[in-house]
């Protein structure tokens, strides 16, 4: 191999970084399904077919109340969508899922059929972090899937650095924590110490079902119920794990770095091609 071969290869390939967010987002895998939409108004009376099929008990229907689905607990297996006889629960193929408040992930009642997407930071926080955000990642009971799909944002296809977002080694250099995992009790102390070492003002971003609400391990005495059990969470990014596009959207949404069309509540184009190239 010539010394120049990797370089010429690189030149032949050209820029590998996706056009998003200036261009359109890459398509989600067609079987991904994206965010869920829950219209409790469509539920048949006394039907609770979705409740027992949910492996993580994210769906509740109590007598006299509409069905309620907690997208923070959801692992997006789609069992409830298949079980629903009246299409009250449907997949939207929308990759956008990040919210600022935990209650914005509760779906079902009129006006709350879909997630209420995160608002951008404002004022001093936006001026401090909008163009430069340094995060310390802490895995506390994560299974290495959320970690892997956060890591992938640093690869050439996604190039997180172009937004001024970077993962740093020391909490002293960080503007906040990106937390994965249900918070194992054995990591509770290390997480608190890491948080204390981050200078204020600071942010917490909870990535994945475990970090939001304990995920498949919710209720095990060896874990807490997500990052919110220990820290004040500023951004919730649901998924098991969230698609990298969902994580990137959440970060850019928080920093107000999305073009107006993406940031708005307008529907994203649904990705459903089998042969197309997805990133």
């Amino acid at each position, binding site marked *: 191999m010539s010394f120049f071969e*990797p370089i010429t290869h690189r030149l032949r390939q050209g820029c590998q970084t996706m056009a998003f967010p200036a261009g359109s987002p890459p398509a989600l895998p067609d079987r991904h399904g994206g965010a869920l939409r829950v219209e409790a108004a469509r539920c048949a009376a006394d039907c609770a077919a979705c409740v027992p099929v949910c492996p993580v008990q994210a769906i509740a229907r109590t007598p006299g109340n509409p069905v309620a689905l907690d997208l923070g607990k959801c692992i997006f297996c789609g069992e409830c969508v298949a079980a629903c006889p009246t299409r009250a629960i449907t997949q939207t193929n929308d990759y956008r899922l990040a919210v600022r408040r935990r209650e914005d992930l509760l779906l079902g009642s009129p006006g709350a059929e879909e997630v209420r997407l995160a608002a951008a930071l404002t004022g001093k926080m936006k001026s401090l972090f909008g163009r430069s955000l340094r995060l310390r990642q802490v895995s506390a009971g994560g299974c290495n*899937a959320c970690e892997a799909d956060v890591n992938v944002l640093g690869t050439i296809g996604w190039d997180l650095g172009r937004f001024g977002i970077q993962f740093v080694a020391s909490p002293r250099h960080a503007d906040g924590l990106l937390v994965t995992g249900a918070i194992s009790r054995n990591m509770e102390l290390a997480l608190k110490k890491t948080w204390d070492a981050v200078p204020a003002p600071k942010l917490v971003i909870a990535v994945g079902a475990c970090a939001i609400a304990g995920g498949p391990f919710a209720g095990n005495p060896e*874990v807490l119920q997500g990052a919110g059990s220990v820290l004040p969470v500023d951004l919730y990014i649901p998924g098991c794990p969230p698609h990298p596009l969902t994580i990137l959207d959440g970060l850019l949404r928080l920093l107000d770095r999305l073009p107006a069309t993406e940031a708005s509540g307008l529907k994203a184009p649904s990705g459903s091609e089998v042969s197309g*190239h997805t990133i």
Partner: protein
Amino acid sequence: MNPPREFYLCGNGASVPWAEVPAWPAEEFVAATAAELARGGRLCAWFGVPEADGTCLVAVIAFDAENTLAVGRSLPAVNSYPSLTPGHPQAHLFEREVWEQHGLVPDGHPWLKPVRRQGGGHPAAGEFFRVAGGEIHEVSVGPVHAGIIEPGHFRFQCNGEEVLHLEIALGYQHRGVETALAGGPHRATLSQLETVAGDTTIGHATAYATIMESLAGEEAPLRAQWLRALALELERLANHTGDLGALAGDVAFLPTAAACGKIRGDFLNLTALICGNRFGRGLVRPGGCRHDLETARAGALLGRLRAALADVNQAAEWLWAANSVRARFELTGTVASVQAAELGLVGVAARASGLVRDVRFDHPAGWHRFAPVPVAVWPDGDVLARARVRSLEIQRSGKFLEDQLGTPPDGEIFTAARPPAGDTLAVALVEGWRGEICHVAITDAAGRFRRYKITDPSFHNWPGLALAMRGQAISDFPICNKSFNLSYCGFDL
């Protein structure tokens, strides 16, 4: 009752009534196990099952060349039993775990301390091994590391740059997986097993599905077995590619690092093409698979697979051709073949030390009975060998997928499983991308789990990393660590 003469012999994916598992008094059971290990057996699992007022010890031993598993147990023991570890170091962590979980003391164990028990906001690590001397210094790393990785603690005893001893203390990721399985399967069981080690979803889910099918006395449809085998190799391709890239990155060889970071995602997306999730969540379940790979989809997969394979093989060629890379990989972090065998290493780490062991070849179950995969071995035991084995396996997994995608079996992908048998032990091995995954289930009279034991390959291999660091410069720890790339949560359960 006279003690039995032999272990129960069976194949991968077998089940046996608990009453028919040969049982010895604890002391004789340890001696019988030691004899099996001495004649070339390999400890896949060693764990306790509460019974009466004591604890039964259970051993699953593999005889790789004979494609046979041997299962045996002790009668209920209390307080203590003679330790297996002094003669057979591969039992070291298993015996610590039994002591931690059941309070049964292995008399004569050289390093008896907790594995993952809670200690009040952190694991109960106990005292660390210390090297004495005025010029010795101790380096303490973790649990929070300087990267986006899982937590664990490393304690180095150094003389200058040289590492005399490394002790690895884990447990930070402990989520109570095995405890939660008692009385199961529960609603969340499959999701929990898919995330035992989230980068090995297909491997652990396949082991679990095999257990449930074995307990039900039936097999998944052939087409589902075929799909699982495809997904297992896609999982291997994605992770091996990521590891080659990470190794290149650690020695600042950026062309391969940058290329593999992207190609790894291409492989993950092939898994997502089958089931929607990049890590294979929701694909494998007891009774079969949940998504099919129709002809058009298989064609699309094959096209994208070939492109990604060409890319990764090219990126690997750059790595082997770079003198600067070879200089850093060669003779770094060496584990000799005899040490690897004594520690009971599995998977890539074992094969890179010249040991021929691969569940797909030695103990084929599922689709691998019809489609064997050659074992990729490299003799040197160093970082280069572990990288080379990955690269060889990328080629062979690629070839396997190309062959198998061309010859799909027809039929259903799912049959509703019958209820699991009661008072039965079932064992399943799967060659995950890191190595041997071992699941053992023991049911109660109603067919619920009395005990479910999970052995992730990382449980065997973490001591291999500690040994690889002996006599190394501490600055070589990152590439040694990445060359093993072990799971924290898979170990911590």
